[in-house]
């Protein structure tokens, strides 16, 4: 509920939200100037988990940066793997075998599912519903088991290689994935939608609250579900296709309301689309090698390369500048959460504290990705 603020500034107080606060999911700090429970001014303070990843990229060779990519957006690590691989492959002119491309898409979409499921759980936690967390983690556990089987890790994947992937998928993974999709499809309407989405308290707390207009989205550079919840039909997988996405049939859910409920529904619909993509990719999976022949030490030609991928949070851009040496000259990341969060200061103005936190939850923040 947004009300025009008419407060006397000697009656406001500063509320320090974070860096340790249950709602900020990490070490985000927001300096809130409050008038009672209304926010007069919100000022996100970043940098509490800044680890100089971009500088680290310059200090090692191309392959050595690979594990770092998983430690930024730790919830959709494979998309970061993918973005970095794409950038380096474009720089070095590496052709990726088709089977590897399909495996990449399958694993990235599975990772997107884990990310959205975890977001759903954490978002409900923000709204005070604790039980969905346990149900969601049950589903996520199955996905993590499958991903562990093929990638060897459960959270910070380092699975992609320049020119392919590290490990082939086997029949058990394929049957397990099909079984999981069947299970999630049967659970989605009952547990996710009947119990939570249709809940009157949830509807009242999300509908019409946290309005982010299309104009604001464009101004702040919001992407991903945040932009699609405000009516912007932009998905890197469709607009600047990469990998084998053009060969797969999927929709981009777009809602025009721009409120927290729209962002919620975009993510819920995206889960279904991810399942569709995984199913199609598993059906079309060709035989062949999973990795191209790539020299151990890469020395791409000098130049400026750009790759962008759609992560669970939006458009991740990787700008790779090479000088012909074995190390990247510069790696600049355009992380989606940073732009999405930048809208918070403007949108939260005039909101009540709990609504602002619901808005923050609906942005799906991953703080290490903001600070890098």
């Amino acid at each position: 509920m947004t009300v025009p603020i008419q407060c006397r500034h000697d009656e406001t107080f500063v509320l320090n939200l974070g860096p340790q606060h249950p709602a900020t999911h990490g070490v985000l700090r927001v300096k809130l100037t409050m008038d009672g429970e209304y926010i007069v001014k919100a000022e996100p303070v970043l940098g509490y988990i800044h680890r100089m990843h971009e500088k680290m990229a310059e200090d090692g060779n191309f392959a050595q940066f690979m594990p770092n990519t998983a430690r930024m957006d730790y919830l959709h690590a494979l998309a970061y793997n993918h973005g970095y691989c794409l950038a380096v492959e474009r720089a070095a002119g590496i052709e990726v075998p088709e089977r590897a491309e399909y495996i990449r898409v399958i694993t990235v979409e599975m990772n997107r599912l884990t990310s959205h499921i975890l977001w759903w759980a954490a978002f409900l936690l923000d709204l005070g519903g604790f039980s969905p967390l346990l149900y969601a983690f049950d589903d996520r556990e199955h996905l993590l088991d499958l991903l562990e089987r093929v990638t060897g890790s459960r959270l910070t994947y380092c699975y992609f290689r320049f020119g392919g992937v590290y490990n082939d998928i086997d029949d058990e993974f394929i049957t397990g994935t099909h079984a999981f999709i069947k299970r999630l499809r049967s659970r989605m309407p009952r547990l996710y939608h009947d119990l939570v989405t249709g809940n009157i308290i949830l509807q009242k707390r999300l509908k019409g609250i946290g309005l982010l207009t299309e104009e604001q989205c464009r101004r702040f550079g919001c992407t991903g579900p945040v932009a699609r919840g405000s009516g912007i039909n932009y998905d890197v997988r469709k607009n600047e296709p990469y990998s084998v996405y053009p060969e797969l049939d999927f929709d981009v859910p777009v809602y025009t309301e721009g409120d927290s409920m729209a962002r919620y529904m975009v993510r819920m619909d995206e889960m279904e689309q991810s399942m569709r993509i995984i199913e199609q990719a598993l059906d079309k999976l060709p035989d062949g090698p999973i990795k191209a022949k790539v020299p151990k030490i890469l020395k791409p030609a000098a130049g400026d390369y750009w790759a962008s991928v759609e992560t669970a949070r939006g458009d991740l851009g990787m700008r790779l500048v090479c000088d012909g040496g074995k190390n990247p000259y510069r790696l600049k990341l355009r992380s989606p959460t940073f732009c999405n969060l930048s809208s918070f200061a403007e949108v939260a103005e005039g909101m009540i504290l709990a609504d602002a936190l619901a808005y923050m939850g609906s942005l799906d923040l991953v703080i290490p990705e903001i600070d890098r």
Partner: protein
Amino acid sequence: MDTSIWRPILYLIGFMAFAGLNAAYLGWCERKGAARIQRRTGPMEVGFQGLLQPLADGLKLMSKQLLVPDGVDGILYRAAPILAMIPALTSMAVIPFAGNVQARAVELSVLLLFALASIGMMAVLLGGWASGNKYSLIAAARSVSQNLAYEIPMLVTVITIVMLTGSMNLEDIVLHQQGGFWNWNIFPLVNHSIAQAIIMPVSFIIFFICSVAETNRAPFDMAEAESELIAGHMTEYGSMGFGLFMMGEYLNMVVGACLITILFLGGWDCPFGLFPGVWWFLIKIYILLFTVIWIRWTYPRTQIYKLLNLSWKILIPFSLANLLMTAAFIKIF
């Protein structure tokens, strides 16, 4: 009535034991209930099925230092947790658990209970104020506005019952509903008109919602909304100060359940008119308590202004209409 000195002493021991066991074991029930709802096992380590967990928790809390942070109002900070317990404990004295199982038969026991319930709110207010923490202060402010808003429909609903019964004595209210569930105030088919039978379930729902809100339970737990206000008024409390707040919350739940049982569910009356006794009373309050726990672990939290809107815009008009219609029916029939 027997006025021997032993009666108060006996009841004091009995009620303290009842209150203490409830305060400790409702926590265990809540954890087990939540675990069952969430497909976990809950506490399992201490004793069979974790039955000794409340004792272990109590020992842990008592062995901790009672930390008083700098900049707090020392006296109020220490008094608040005690104030959370006292009204709930005192209320127990006038609650009739069965015929003549009551520490003190007070003629105006309904009034006394509601007076004590309002004092319970002061604990949250003082705790939030004295902590010197902005989050606690917001929690205190929320708690006061919430309690103010919900006491009105609650009291108006009670007035309808008092009008029907013609007494403010809890025991009389129960005796008025004896003889099977068709006589209970929740659905009075026999003693009253059909119109009354339609009004009373609405009153019951209003009263139930209000008592959940009064005891600061989810989905109305505005004062301790952990994703917004960390732990609300309990943020700065540790050790047994925190423990007392928690016990006070559970005791308030028990008192609320007792009140609903007495006012609407016929107290110690059996649903089929057989073997009335204290066990029926206990069964009813534990069913109500389970419902409250069930609600907490199913629904997300509502919003403070939505909560106030619910009270001022829906519950108060409805309860006033109820009161008016009840008065009219009493006059007409």
